[in-house]
């Protein structure tokens, strides 16, 4: 789980080229810092990808990380977003054990979190939830008692609010 005291978000736009992910991850690893989550995906321009990286580091060090990342030739932009109002979301798929007795109960919890059931068998239910990391954490905690068989989380994606670019 992320400790919000020591988690910082950096958003990085990169040229879609071989090795870029390794370069970016390597730069962070070299500074002895753990990557809490890293998500990569295309942007509105197919030649450019966005990486959203959450690192376990004190906020005052994030600008230094962003500066180091900007030195990677394929990095077009690297922003430390902690002081900027932003929206961040994460998606999780959670496969829990169900019995005829718990099924409704779980669906009620899912309702509260606006999670949806994406797969159902007589023994398992797979739920999809999106939200901020804390919301996903809370959802996971509530489901734990039914027995989580598997879980996959995307890691956080973030955009700055309003007209300003991330």
């Amino acid at each position, binding site marked *: 789980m992320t400790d919000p005291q020591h988690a910082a978000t950096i958003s990085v736009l990169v040229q879609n080229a*071989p*090795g870029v992910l390794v*370069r970016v991850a390597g730069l962070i690893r*070299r500074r002895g810092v753990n990557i809490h989550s890293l998500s990569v995906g295309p942007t509105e321009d197919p030649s450019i990808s966005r990486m959203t990286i959450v690192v376990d580091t004190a906020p005052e060090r994030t*600008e*230094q990380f962003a*500066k180091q990342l*900007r030195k990677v*030739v394929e990095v077009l932009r690297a922003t430390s977003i902690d002081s900027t109002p932003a929206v961040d979301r994460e998606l999780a798929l959670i496969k829990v054990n169900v019995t005829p007795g718990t099924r409704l109960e779980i669906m009620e919890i899912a309702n509260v979190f606006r999670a949806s059931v994406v797969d159902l068998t007589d023994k398992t239910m797979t739920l999809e939830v999106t939200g901020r990391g804390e919301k996903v954490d809370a959802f996971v905690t509530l489901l734990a008692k039914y027995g989580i068989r598997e879980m996959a989380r995307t890691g956080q994606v973030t955009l700055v609010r309003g007209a300003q670019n991330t």
Partner: protein
Amino acid sequence: MARQMTAAKPSPSAERPRQMNGAQTLVEALRREGVEVLFGHPGGASLPIYDALYDAQDIRHILVRHEQVAAHAAVGYARASGRVGVCTATSGPGATNLITGITDAMMDSAPIVAITGQVPRPVIGNDAFQEADVTGITMPITKYNTLVMRAMDIPKAVRMAFYLAKTGRPGPVLVDIPRDVSQELCEPDFDEDPVLPGYRPVVDGNPGQIAEAADALSAAERPIVYAGGGIISSGATPELTALVERTGIPVVLTLMGKGAMDETHPRCLGMFGMHGSAFANWAINRADVILAVGVRFDDRVTGRLKDFAPHARFIHIDIDPAEIGKNKPAHIPIVGDAKRVLAALVPLVRPPKIEAWWKQIEEWRERYPFRYRQRDGRISHQYVCDLLNRLTGGRAIVVTDVGQHQMWMAQWYKCREPRTFISSGGLGAMGFGFPAALGAKFACPDKQVIALVGDGGFQMTLQDLITAVEHGLSLPIFILNNGALGMVRQWQTFFYRGRFSSSILRNPNFAKIGEAYGARGIRVERPEEVESALRTALETEGVPCVVDIQCDPEENCLPMIPSGQSVAEMILDD
């Protein structure tokens, strides 16, 4: 060596005049970058490249005997001349032998391009014979690297490599070329510009920040300039000198900054840091405004960070934004090229009132100059360094190895011009000195180049004496032979109660080794023989001269600020 699988046919020039293979394309691309010399060693994966070099009359390939030498020589070449140094090696072990030199170039921001052969494309990733993931290995030690997968991409890769190596903050770039790419025929386009949307070094400083810096300096009572290697990379010596002459502000230099300003200039206090002068260390630590230019606040310079210049406001100029605020917060950060920023700054600074400050500095300077004593019948390392300074007038290019001798030379050799002191600073790589001197001599054949090495470090790369002999280089190599890994022995003396664990050396007869290679060899055992031996070596033409100087094994390099401590803990005397 694997048998050649697909022989590249010579291009049938009549119908397709512009067709050439990847290796020929590489050579032509290097030619277009103005490459005259490259240092390297061949092997299976680079055979096609060597075949193409065979035809290139205008590009000299210097065959070294170990690839480590090729990389260090490229750095020496680059730092002596300001041009990009080039080295080449085959795949696998050839490429991994370059690693130390590439890392040195990264740490000391030297512009070099390394070209490595790679196994053929179809077997990449299969643990083929002599395969190593060289772009993977060198990722953290290069400014950029690339694996070229098509012959037609070679021109662009080479242009990009040279452009990245020499612009912005200089550094090493590696181009890895699979053997079958070197053999593949293509119709190269040499004019295609590399597209680098993410690479835009800022060269002009922010005018508002520059004005603020000028105000801070004008109002300072105890200002000082902390000048580093960035001034040399940027060619900013005239601007720095102009600033100092206009304002009277004193200057201290880092090891990498030696040569950034004439050290005999009265305003220049020379080197500070772990083995810098006491007065230079006192001066920077008492300063109220510090203009740091082209420096990175290395721990060998600052000691314990929180106690470094505790009363100062820092103005930090650097082309690399990531250096600013990395170790020490900058009150006035200025991202830009040192030459341009200083040029803009000079006219804005009003000379501050610093007579009292200078009086204090002069007092310190008089009280604690560098000094040494000659113990009976023993040769002081410092005497040799001092003498070399006097005999060359500080105008030779001095290339050192790493250890006590390096620090003593840094203390005693007073550089008059930029690019005259070349040493492995950030990495501190033993084995650097002699090969880098070799490279410097190829870059500046008409200048006096001297190598100053320790008995330990010289043995890491001395096999390339033969290369210097083969090319008839007038290159004196002075070995300050203290029968020890002297710097290690010194730390053991101070911090390990004199328990000399593995620091005492049994040495070969270096003069005879020199002679065996075809060089001149001189052995010096008594103080009164030193001067004539140095003169002979400096005057020896057409052949390297190995001078084995038996020095006082107990001499310690002082002053010293022990690692992680501050100026208050400086050890001044034995």
